[in-house]
């Protein structure tokens, strides 16, 4: 069953304390254990919206939710009793530029658990192995877990960041253009991984690659100037979108 894990209702967001809205009343339900892609031209608000989902924008002083709500598992994530740090344990994020810590491969994956206070070596070992297997990296790094993560290739570093994200067993993984800095082979490995992770996690991915969105996602949302223009099954969006604006964008007709 694919229930709606994330529910956005008339969400508005501003970077300048409400003077101008970057996201203008977006309503959208994201189903559980599926991959949802956000597409749209630069500046359309898709990355901003992604960062709203784990309150990453809280780190910007002038940022403000201007209207509406975001519910994850029925819980309003901006409610006064919700702690942003706690929220991010459940809603992990993978960034455009892979950003492993300057630590060993093992410590990168164990980091999230350590800051949760877990010290038991057996528990940590098990979590590191599970996460590296989960990110399809285990076979490549199992014999050098204590070496620096910065010695890995770009693609491996990105998969390590995914391992670090899933180590704390989040419900949702947000990915902000996770393959834009990777070569085609590393991209294919990450895309294959996304397809496998879908079995356990709800994934929301921002991508500028129409091919990537059509390959990895179940549903696709097209944004333009802060508004949600069309949201449908990925096959429909790429084969027969209902909005002319969507068709123009995906087929390269956008001026």
């Amino acid at each position, binding site marked *: 069953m694919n229930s709606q894990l994330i529910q956005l209702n008339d969400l508005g967001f501003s970077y300048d304390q409400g003077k101008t809205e970057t996201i203008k009343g977006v309503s959208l339900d994201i189903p559980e254990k599926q991959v949802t892609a956000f597409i749209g031209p630069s500046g359309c608000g898709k990355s901003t919206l992604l960062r709203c989902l784990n309150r990453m924008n809280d780190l910007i002083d002038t940022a403000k939710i201007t209207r509406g709500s975001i519910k994850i598992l029925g819980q309003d994530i901006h409610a006064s009793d919700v702690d942003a740090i706690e929220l991010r344990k459940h809603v992990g994020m993978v960034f455009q530029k892979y950003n492993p810590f300057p630590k060993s491969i093992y410590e990168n994956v164990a980091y999230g658990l350590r800051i949760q206070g877990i010290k038991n070596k057996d528990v940590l070992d098990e979590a590191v192995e599970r996460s590296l297997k989960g990110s399809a990296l285990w076979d490549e790094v199992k014999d050098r877990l204590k070496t620096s993560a910065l010695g890995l290739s770009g693609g491996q570093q990105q998969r390590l960041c995914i391992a670090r994200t899933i180590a704390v067993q989040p419900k949702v993984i947000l990915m902000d253009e996770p393959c834009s800095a990777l070569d085609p082979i590393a991209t294919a490995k990450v895309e294959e991984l996304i397809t496998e992770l879908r079995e356990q996690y709800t994934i929301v991915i921002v991508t500028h690659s129409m091919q990537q969105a059509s390959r990895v996602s179940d549903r696709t949302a097209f944004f333009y100037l802060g508004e949600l223009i069309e949201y449908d099954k990925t096959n429909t969006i*790429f*084969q027969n*979108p209902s909005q*002319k604006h969507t068709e*123009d964008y995906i*087929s390269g*007709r*956008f*001026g």
Partner: protein
Amino acid sequence: MPDQIHILTEFDQALSDLKNNTLEMGVLTKRNVENAFTGLTQRDLAICNQVIADDEEVDQLEIQIDNDSLQLMAKFQPFASDLRLVITSMKITHDLERISDHAVSIAKRSRKIIKYGDLEEISLIEPSYNQALKMLDSAMASYSEKCTQQALAVLAMDDELRKFHKMATKAYTKKLEEPCENYKSFLNLTFIIRWVERIGNLSINIAEDVIFMESAQDIRHGGELEE
């Protein structure tokens, strides 16, 4: 749906070339069908031979269009209506090639018929031929104009074609049931009327593909077009 041009002019050019080549293939195919019929009715051996030779042009265009489509897909990775245009063009060219093959078959049988005396029953082919040619014309026009209504009209022409085909087949079969010195020609005419009907059937395929191209709905094998 889209009326804006692509940002990549080369993409627009490739799509436009694909469409123009498909339309050209349609024109050449129609010419072969017309010549085959002229060869038969005018008892013109030279025109029959020309149909057989001209089929090569159609074959080569099919290969070129397939190749261009493959390159277009690899290079520009079309989506939505662009993708449907490429796929539809490839399917249409396959149907056109089959139609031109039928024209060749008609020309070959006509050469045999011409060797013997004139038969007034040849004229029984004409209603089916006119109908099939109209269907081919309309199907290619619907592709050119991207017109679903015109494509739907081609589907509606099938009943009439079937009626004409049945009428001619019945007459030829009746002739063959009795001893008759021209039995070989009547046998050849039953083949020819069958190929003429096939030309109409393949034109329906083209029309169905145009409907898919325009509406993204597959109405083949009894499907209905939803609003």
